[in-house]
């Protein structure tokens, strides 16, 4: 008995001394003995793939944008309008019109740019990036056999644009394997640092694509080395789990389901510098303090994978992650409510902690999709219009998003050419009388299906993401009940929804479109009949719209283009394949010790611009995480008090 007491006491003391809620392993030291500067952030899930040519989900891109640099990049502080500046490119592209109505982009690459060091290269040292690496990478887009967990619409977009692109794809498909030694007509190597892309028609949006990882260079050595096979008893990873690029960071380690670490790319040589110029608003905020300083600032970046919103939030409050909300969609609204007061400002508690609030509107549109091939909703325009007219998003926004989202009237989100904040879609202005009238015209007076004599019942797919989706589903059901429609909400997982929607096995579904670049073309592309299935999930097809779309595609941002776009908008309003709900807008919060951390509406995290003050961070962490022993002692006291009567009781018996 005495032994037990002493063991308990020692373990209790041991427990007290070991108490710490620090969630990371110890920080390594640099060669000169100082600790590394580390950026801490969370990810909602493992990246699905880090293969630049096929990666399309936001979590993967968040990581990949720092590993793979492309020819161009968005200017960090010029956002009104968005400005592209060279990254790997030497100057901006030179565009020349071809005689056949197409155009040619001449693209130059900076000299002496090295890939990151990697075992796949001879001697493990990264070699120089040349135009061959770009051409090889672009050919990979047309390789039908690359393993792609997500399906970006890149090939679909460029099949009709780059000369000979479809031939390369089809030959590969027939042969069962892509032959990269076969040339593509539209991809021409001029010299070691110059190449040309020949397009079949004028396409001003190409520059935006060239700022995305899809067009970033890939060394062929990495593809042959990382094949997922056994080599001399050692299994090489697949390329999608081991990217090799020329960006500011490289992948250091990736423990699945736990954490992913990026480390500064030694061969980056701090070639990029912090901007010396920016929008008025950023100049005012003093974001140019570090102007001209070499990038990147932080040595390593820890991406901790947290599937649950609550621990992610706790980590932030403890000061163990530097920013939260960068995966805006995934951050539970519940946490936002705590930090953000009802007037949209930071609550005093967080203000005191030095947290800064950052709000952006993403280039995205959330919508309720009607399957245009469905015999009921697809063939009845009036029915769709009625549903669109009755649906009230404002209250939904208040209830579930604290009014943060921007109500959508058209597919085009704010910040993009042709967006008009004052425009009112006639079928997105709530009007119960009009909606009931439309239902009558649709043949369902008061929602009664004349065939059965019962209320019209429709199936609705919604994402199951916890208890909120139940309530959200209930809200939507109530909305359509106003015009007598019975909605059967089916809660399914995101991957199930993707499958059902892409295969057209649905009636009505919630869905969203996240823009790839700041051009309206990207937001009307989803209604183009040739993108049916993968991106045009409603399978909407209207020849008149298609004609206007093709016309609009090759126009510069002129009043004529606006006129065409407005015509397209009106066609969509009338046909109503989408019930526009909202444009994604969200808050992000950055700790007081971070500097110039700004979300970008189009591009992903630009880690290289981020700066942290590790000394201040360590101080705050220590201050915020002092273990509170009084409770433990009080608890122990309480327990012993509870035990005393027991001992007495036992004595008696």
């Amino acid at each position, binding site marked *: 008995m005495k032994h037990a007491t002493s063991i308990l006491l020692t373990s209790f003391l041991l427990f007290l001394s070991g108490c*710490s809620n620090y969630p990371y392993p110890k920080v390594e030291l640099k060669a000169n003995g100082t600790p590394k500067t580390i950026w801490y952030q969370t990810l909602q899930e493992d990246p699905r793939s880090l293969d630049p040519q096929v990666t399309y989900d936001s979590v993967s891109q968040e990581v990949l944008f720092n590993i793979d640099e492309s020819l161009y990049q968005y200017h960090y502080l010029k956002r009104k309008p968005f400005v592209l500046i060279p990254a790997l490119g030497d100057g901006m592209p030179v565009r020349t019109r071809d005689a056949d109505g197409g155009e040619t982009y001449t693209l130059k690459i900076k000299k002496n740019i090295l890939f990151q060091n990697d075992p796949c290269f001879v001697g493990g040292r990264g070699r120089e990036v040349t135009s061959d690496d770009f051409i090889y990478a672009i050919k990979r887009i047309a390789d039908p056999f690359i393993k792609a967990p997500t399906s970006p619409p890149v090939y679909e977009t460029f099949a009709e644009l780059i000369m000979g692109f479809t031939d390369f794809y089809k030959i590969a498909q027939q042969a069962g394997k892509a032959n990269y030694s076969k040339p593509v007509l539209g991809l021409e190597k001029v010299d070691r640092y110059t190449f040309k892309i020949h397009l079949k028609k004028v396409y001003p949006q190409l520059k935006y694509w060239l700022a995305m990882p899809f067009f970033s260079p890939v060394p062929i050595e990495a593809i042959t080395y990382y094949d997922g096979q056994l080599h001399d008893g050692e299994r090489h990873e697949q390329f999608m789990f081991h990217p090799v690029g020329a960006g500011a960071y490289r992948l250091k380690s990736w423990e*699945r*389901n736990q954490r992913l670490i990026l480390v500064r790319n030694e061969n980056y040589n701090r070639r990029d510098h912090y901007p010396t110029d920016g929008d008025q608003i950023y100049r005012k905020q003093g974001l140019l303090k570090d102007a001209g300083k070499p990038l990147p600032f932080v040595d390593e970046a820890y991406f901790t994978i947290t599937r649950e919103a609550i621990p992610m939030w706790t980590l932030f409050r*403890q000061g163990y992650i530097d920013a939260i909300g960068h995966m805006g969609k995934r951050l539970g609204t519940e946490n936002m409510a705590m930090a953000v007061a009802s007037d949209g400002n930071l609550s005093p508690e967080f203000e005191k902690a030095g947290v800064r609030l950052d709000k952006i509107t993403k280039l995205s549109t959330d919508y309720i999709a009607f399957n245009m091939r469905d015999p009921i909703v697809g063939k009845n325009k009036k029915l769709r219009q009625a549903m669109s007219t009755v649906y009230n998003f404002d209250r939904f926004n208040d209830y579930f998003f604290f009014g943060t989202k921007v109500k959508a009237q058209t597919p085009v989100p704010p910040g993009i050419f042709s967006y008009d904040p004052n425009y009112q879609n006639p079928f997105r202005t709530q009007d119960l009388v009009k909606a009931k009238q439309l239902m009558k015209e649709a043949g369902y007076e008061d929602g009664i299906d004349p065939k059965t004599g019962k209320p019209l019942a429709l199936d609705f797919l919604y994402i199951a993401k916890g208890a909120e989706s139940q309530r959200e589903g209930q809200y939507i059901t109530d909305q359509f009940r106003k015009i007598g429609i019975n909605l059967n909400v089916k809660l399914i997982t995101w991957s199930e929804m993707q499958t059902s929607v892409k295969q057209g096995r649905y009636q009505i579904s919630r869905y969203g479109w996240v823009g790839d670049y700041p051009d309206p073309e990207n937001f009307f592309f989803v209604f183009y009949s040739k993108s049916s299935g993968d991106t045009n999930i409603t399978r909407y097809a209207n020849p008149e719209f298609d004609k206007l779309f093709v016309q609009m595609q090759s126009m510069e941002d002129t009043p004529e283009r606006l006129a065409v776009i407005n015509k397209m908008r009106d066609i969509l309003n009338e046909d109503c394949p989408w019930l526009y709900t909202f444009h994604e807008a969200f808050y992000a919060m950055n700790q007081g010790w971070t500097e110039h951390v700004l979300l970008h509406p189009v591009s992903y995290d630009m880690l290289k611009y981020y700066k942290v003050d590790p000394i201040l961070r360590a101080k705050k962490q220590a201050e915020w995480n002092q*273990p*509170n022993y009084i409770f433990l002692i009080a608890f122990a006291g309480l327990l012993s008090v509870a035990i005393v009567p027991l001992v007495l009781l036992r004595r008696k018996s």
Partner: protein
Amino acid sequence: MLLYIVRRVLYTLPIIFGVMLLTFILFFTVASPENIAKRQLGKNPTPELVQNWLHNHGYDKPQLLNLPFDAKYDPKQPWYYSQFTSHMQATLLFQFGISDTTGEDIGTRLAQGALPSALITLPAFVATLLITVSLSLGIAFYRGSYLDWGGTFICIVLMSAPIMGYIIAGQWLLGLVLRYFPVFGFASGFDSLRFVLLPVLIGVIVALGDSVRFYRTIMLDEIGQDYTRTARAKGLSEQIVLFKHVLKNALIPILTKVVADLPLLILGSLLLENFFGIPGLGNLTIVAITELDFSLLRALVFLGSILYIIGLLLTDISYTLVDPRVRLD
């Protein structure tokens, strides 16, 4: 005795067969391989591409057996050429193949997840067993006192809250307010200890109410038996009666329950691992469910089943050790 153990071991073989048959039927009716293939391939795959994928993942064979009525009957192959037989063969050799979604080697992922899971579940298991048995003994000892009804009441209270409540409350109280433990993360080696403590503590508390309450009824059952009265009449002290006689006889139902809880060891920590960011098998299961990765899920099911079967084996053997009256043959 030895003969019995050998027989009992041999008896597990058909069970493993049955599990595999059942899981095979369940998982292959949930989603057709064609759909998985189409989802994985993206980019509007051609029929050849789908066929190729199906072939690589072994989904192009006849389902149960290569017999003429099967849609995928192949007369050139022997009768045992089927998804089922190859599935059986592969799982028995612990070759789980590659994941449906990422194409990674499943065996490697399982091996990575086993240690973190074991670090949570084994301490939680042992601690739960020791604490619940001693608590229920204590309650039985003080039966009829305020401790008895108070303890039972607390057990009922503990049983009434959902597991998420414990996790959220534990993270909030011990992580955020009192700051004793990290609420998230994992590290390898000795450093893992501080990450493991809070999940283990919560795991014990979650299991407490149910188990103590059940064991208490068992103990009281035994206390009411004749042999206890006889022992007491012999003049043995209450402690000896409890520890020697009652505990020994209560072991059969306790063992049964412990084994019944075994599969939960790996998979009951599902939410715990998810909340605390422990890269174990429970977390992997959530991934498999959300991603609908059927090959991964199948592997996890098989692993869990094997574990349970071993547990069952051990209980049945210990039955005969504890209570010589019980004979299964």
